[in-house]
């Protein structure tokens, strides 16, 4: 099978390069977009830059836009992106600065993750249990869906609100915040919610669902944000325990 990749090129050193470059490479039917990129870099163009590590949708480093949709290159087969052998267009993640070719600067994304207090904190007013903190099975199952986030940045790139307002915290950080706020072991719910319940925080989400649609790990950030809105409202009405 002949894979045709149309790759967005950018070289920060200012060297002239084509805006989009076309590569054609012979690949097996089962190949993913990442396989084709790796083969291209090895046999056609050593200057082509993209990130990858695990090749199995665990590390999240190969997130990029494939035909305009934010996806993991390792989890997207060429036959899926181009069922009739069309050209596959590859671009770096949107809503983030580009460092080179398909490599996005993840800095702003990580800054927002950090801003939501992404860890469990104990409540000093409560006595610690004698043995372990228990989380019941139903709650644990619910949490694991949000904890499945691999921080690849796909939702951040897919979110049209982030595109309009780069001070918005974005879906990944808010889903992470919900993962901690909903955890019965957490004692920092109040502090976290007051950090989130503002114009650039959870109230900025317009429930467009792009994040949920494009998440490669089945996380549902929109649901998390809606639940956070509920929590913030109850807290404001002093109904939240």
């Amino acid at each position, binding site marked *: 099978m002949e894979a045709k990749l149309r790759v967005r090129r950018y070289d920060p050193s200012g060297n002239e390069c084509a805006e989009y470059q076309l590569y054609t490479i012979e690949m097996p039917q089962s190949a993913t977009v990442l396989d084709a990129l790796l083969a291209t*870099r090895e046999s056609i163009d050593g*200057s082509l830059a993209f990130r990858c590590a695990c090749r199995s949708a665990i590390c999240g480093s190969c997130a990029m836009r494939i035909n305009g949709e934010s996806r993991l290159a390792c989890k997207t087969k060429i036959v899926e992106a181009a069922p009739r052998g069309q050209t596959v267009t590859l671009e770096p993640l949107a809503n983030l600065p580009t460092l080179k070719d398909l490599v996005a600067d993840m800095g702003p994304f990580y800054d927002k993750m950090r801003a939501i207090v992404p860890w469990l904190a104990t409540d000093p007013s409560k006595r610690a249990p004698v043995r372990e903190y228990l989380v019941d099975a139903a709650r644990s199952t619910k949490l694991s869906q949000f904890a499945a986030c691999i921080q690849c940045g796909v939702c951040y790139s897919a979110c049209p609100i982030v595109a309009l307002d780069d001070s918005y915290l974005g879906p990944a950080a808010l889903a992470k915040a919900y993962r901690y706020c909903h955890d019965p072991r957490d004692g920092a719910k109040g502090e976290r919610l007051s950090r989130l319940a503002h114009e650039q925080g959870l109230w900025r989400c317009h429930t467009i669902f792009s994040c949920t649609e494009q998440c490669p790990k089945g996380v549902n950030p929109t649901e998390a944000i809606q639940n956070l809105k509920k929590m913030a409202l109850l807290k404001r009405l002093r109904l939240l325990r």
Partner: protein
Amino acid sequence: MNKGVGIFRTREGMADALATVRDLKERWRRVPVQNKGKVFNFELLSVIELGFMLDLAEVIASGALQREESRGAHSRRDFPERDDAAWMKHTLAYRTPEGPRLDYAPVAKTHWEPEKRVY
């Protein structure tokens, strides 16, 4: 390395692999890097990493070649038995211009006496 120093090993297979690795190390010294870019130069990174991999391959193959017994993941068809009298020791490798120099260190035994694993 997959072929000669893989799951089941023999002296011939490992000696072949070691010779190939040494040959590749020599060739690696002449590898050109076409991409001269200073940002995200994955071609340069691959060449550096290849050098590291060849160094480690040489360490693994030479250590395994010396160890004339089978132990854990080191399964030799020519020495199928574990030999605690001669080989209950760690292999240490030191970098020298001529390739890795091997030395050995005793095994620290604590609560559990090391014994053969049988399933």
